[in-house]
């Protein structure tokens, strides 16, 4: 995923902090992904495991080169939880617990 430094032509929304990147400001742009502030690009927060709530172990993840931590969806899974039995059901239950609003029963 390559990021290009651009002078913003229009206002945009930073994909890291969700705040405005104003027109004429410098932003980092990637095709199909969006823009982010230069400052936000320096942050490198590790993803969290949705199942156990701990850190997802990004440093030792086999996808560390491909996974842009600032861009991807914020909740991942850690190696340990991935290897649990019936891990997919466990994953769904965890989502249901943390985001009960998604469990629509209408």
């Amino acid at each position, binding site marked *: 995923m390559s990021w290009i430094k651009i002078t913003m032509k229009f*206002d945009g929304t930073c994909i890291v902090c969700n705040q405005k990147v104003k027109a004429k400001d410098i932003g980092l742009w990637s095709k*199909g992904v969006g823009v982010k502030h230069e400052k936000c690009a320096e942050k490198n927060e590790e993803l969290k495991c949705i199942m156990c709530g701990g850190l997802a172990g990004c440093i030792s993840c086999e*996808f560390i080169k491909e996974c842009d931590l600032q861009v991807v*969806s914020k909740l991942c899974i850690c190696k340990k939880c991935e290897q649990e039995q019936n891990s997919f059901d466990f994953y769904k239950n965890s*989502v249901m617990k943390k985001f009960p*609003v998604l469990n629509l029963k*209408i």
Partner: protein
Amino acid sequence: MMWSEKYRPKNILDLVGNEEPRKLLVEWFTKWKKGMKPILLVGPPGIGKTTLANLIAKQYNYDLISLNASDVRSKQNIQEILNPVLGNQTIFGTPMIFIDEVDGVHGRADYGGVEAIIKILKESTVPIILAANSDLSKKMQNIKKSVQTIQFRPLPPRLLLFYLNKILQLEDAKISTDSLMKLVKESRGDIRSMINFAQALVTGYNPPTEKSFEVLDVEGGVNSFYKSNSVDEARSILYSLRINPRDKINAFYSSIITSKMNVDDMQKFLQIISSADMLYGKIMKTQQWRLLRYLDAILLGLYKKNLPIRYSKYNLSWPILNRIRWDGAKIKSLMELFVKDMHVSKSTFSSICLGFLLFCVKNKKIDLELDESLQEIIQKEIELIK
């Protein structure tokens, strides 16, 4: 059946990743009342924006009225489709509007479309959800003023792998670890393309190894396509043939037209090529690149087991090409010789005068003193008019 369809989530909880944006959308929907700003879902393709909008309509019992990239979204069309919905809700039940790929509304083909959408957004009396891959263009800036934006993100590769493993487990299929890793990396957060490629790999002609991801060149692609043992194998070859769609259509056309086959097959295949060509023409004209996904499905109709079709670069048979190349050059020099004396243009000579000239020579009305090669071509042409 396509796995991406088979495993399409049945409810919002079945989706993977983007939990926070999903939550925001559900909350917006739960609180929705007249006058609230519509929602714009922004994010890369294949992460579930369209699926989410469909599911939310289904789960809240709304009647979904959707406009996607394959519809003409001009001002007139949008007004014709959506204005009745906004005015007469009782007739339409409880409608919800979903405009997919709103960033793809085309300036010319969909003239006035953006303005019409903005007008509807400002006066919304029903829930409206828009989806876009990017919100950075000028037209999107105008749309964004009237909506609340929810950003969707690509999925972390490990989560993708986790989901893919679940599907493979349900399908009782296996892919080597190397191929799995490569597949996940190449999908770049796009669940749909990852599932499609996985299916192509599992049902494909090559064992799921690293090599099966190699992009086939046009010659290898067409030849392997006709050597395949099953439709599934042919399908996976078509998917691997990542070349310009126009070149793909041309390659199949030239290969078919130069091969020996029965008239019925030839007619059927040319009909299929014609459909593919029309689809590509529509894509180019309207810039609805979303439709490109149907091109391979059309071209798959060109597969028939044990057909002697092999790749050929030229769309004419060799004897015809030979004649154009060599005889054409001789006719051209003959033409240059005559046009000056006859005071006519080259095209007039070749389309009108040449025929008469040949008849005169044939009936021995004139005797031309030409060199041997030109005499030869005249004799050849006379033979042909017999």
